[in-house]
């Protein structure tokens, strides 16, 4: 169990160290040459893990439908919800879900974020729009994470109506990326 986010914001350095002048930590700073010249010992290790996860019944059908240009969900007669993405069991009722339901490829932006940097912190030329889309036909609050496109940063808003922009059929592989992005479905 990892905690990759832990330890980043562990408070003000000076406060933690209990120093009067936090801008001057004690000791002698290491020079880049000392690091590069291996005067300090390191033990480097790289590895590569490969997994091939069974999609199972629910996600298997979901991906198959995406390849066909459709979004599907599962209904639960216990709580009368339509679950998107589909699952074979209802987590609220703890019972098997009942039927496959075709839902629409339109929806509403639940929330979004705009990024101007890449993973390596370099500046992006075009900002990246990430959003949670509540899918039409699914129960309230259900849907999935995706990208927004054909829209300007200033136009995006919570509650914006969107429609899937599908990849051409011959490019679809049975993946969530078979939808290129969601774009505004009506006049802003």
């Amino acid at each position: 169990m990892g905690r990759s986010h832990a330890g980043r914001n562990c408070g003000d350095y000076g406060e933690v160290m209990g120093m009067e002048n936090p801008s001057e930590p004690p000791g002698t700073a290491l020079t880049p040459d000392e690091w590069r010249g291996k005067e300090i010992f390191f033990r480097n290790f790289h590895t590569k893990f490969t997994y091939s996860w069974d999609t199972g019944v629910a996600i298997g059908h979901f991906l198959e439908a995406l390849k066909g240009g459709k979004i599907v969900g599962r209904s639960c007669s216990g709580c009368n919800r339509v679950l998107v993405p589909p699952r074979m069991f209802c987590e609220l009722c703890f019972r098997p879900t009942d039927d496959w339901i075709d839902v629409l490829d339109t929806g509403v932006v639940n929330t979004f974020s705009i990024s101007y940097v890449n993973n390596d912190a370099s500046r992006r030329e075009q900002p990246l729009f990430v959003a949670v889309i509540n899918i039409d036909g699914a129960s309230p609050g259900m849907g999935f994470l995706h990208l927004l496109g054909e829209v300007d940063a200033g136009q995006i808003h919570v509650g914006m109506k969107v429609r899937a922009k599908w990849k051409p059929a011959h490019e679809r592989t049975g993946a969530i990326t078979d939808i290129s992005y969601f774009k505004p479905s009506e006049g802003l």
Partner: protein
Amino acid sequence: MNNKAGIEQYLYASFGPELKFGRWLMVSKAFTDKLVGNIGALLLDDKVAIVGIGYSGFSPATPSQSYKELIFDAASRAYAECSVNPRKDVESFVCCEEDLWEGTSITDEYAPDQLGAAQRNICTVSQDGLNGVATAYMHIKSGVASIAVVESHSKLSNVLSQSQVREFALEPYYERPILSDGIPVAAMQMRRFMHDYKVTEEDIAQVVSKNKKNGLFNQRSSYAADVSVEQAMRSPFVWNPLRRIQMAPPADGCVVAVLASAEKARSMTEQPVWIKGIGWNSASTSAESAISSDALYAKEAAKMAYKIAGVNSPKSYFDFAEVDDTYAFKELQHAEALGIADMDVSKGNMPAVAPVPINMSGGSLSLGDLVEATGLVRLLEAVQRLRNAERKRSKGSKRALVQSWRGIPSSSGAVAVLGVE
């Protein structure tokens, strides 16, 4: 002091003089009655039982189900056995899983839905499933929960870099630069164990033959086979002296167990299997685990479990044992550590018939290696055997020993003492 009158006597004897000063008269009679009742309940009936156990998978691969669907299946069966509604009745869920075997960081965050644990009390024990049973046992003993659920599973067929995961578990500074897999550590342990206890190739082959044949009577075993001792001795070496057939091959599967307090257990099932004692231990890793011929973790975990259960002579106490045999020699090493085998070094051999029958289920050599779920597999086999014996009114199987090991290169293990009386 095992009844209410006795407790009242004890309280009077302890606090009687105080009463003279009138301080205690302030406490109402109803309150003291309730206090006495609660203490009485704790003293009289604080046992913990396994009331339901379900499983799914037990196959080299399970391509038709996602791990969530696999878990939902096992959980549904466990809950059905004891008519429990996880959304209402279960007060604590414990799941045992390891990020790298799953391929997801903080993988326990994906555990609740398929167990019926969404928006409920769940925690992860990043250990073998039997350690999870110990945690659930404590939750019940402490009164935090009266019904608790333990889950663990394996989807090893989805892990294409099993060797890299084992490598990643090796000590990073001075072991990983030398070794690129954990299996040689098992081979070296095996060599030292055979040397110190004068165990022969044939002794190890006997374990293989016994467990592979036992598995033929178990529907859950994917790797059972009619293997003779001679055939086992001809299996190719992986890392000398370790032969391929002496290693449990990977398997997928899930086990879910429902535990309950004595008060609840009796109304949930006609066949509660009591956890009479439980223990766990980690010795010390790396070099030590390769050099020591003794399974200290099993020895210490057993000491703890035996003390709680009041087991003085394990050889006569237990009717059978389910012991970790991820590598064939481990069964002998663990049996020795648990005090259920007559290891006579002077005889230069292991007994053909152990005082306590071991792994009648076929063990991991027949059922496969289910990584963190292995301890729960041993538990499942023991519970099923105890229940079957009770159903047939056979007197032979009333007390069982269950032991788990966390695998290479760990020196961690857990032990449970089970009984139907």
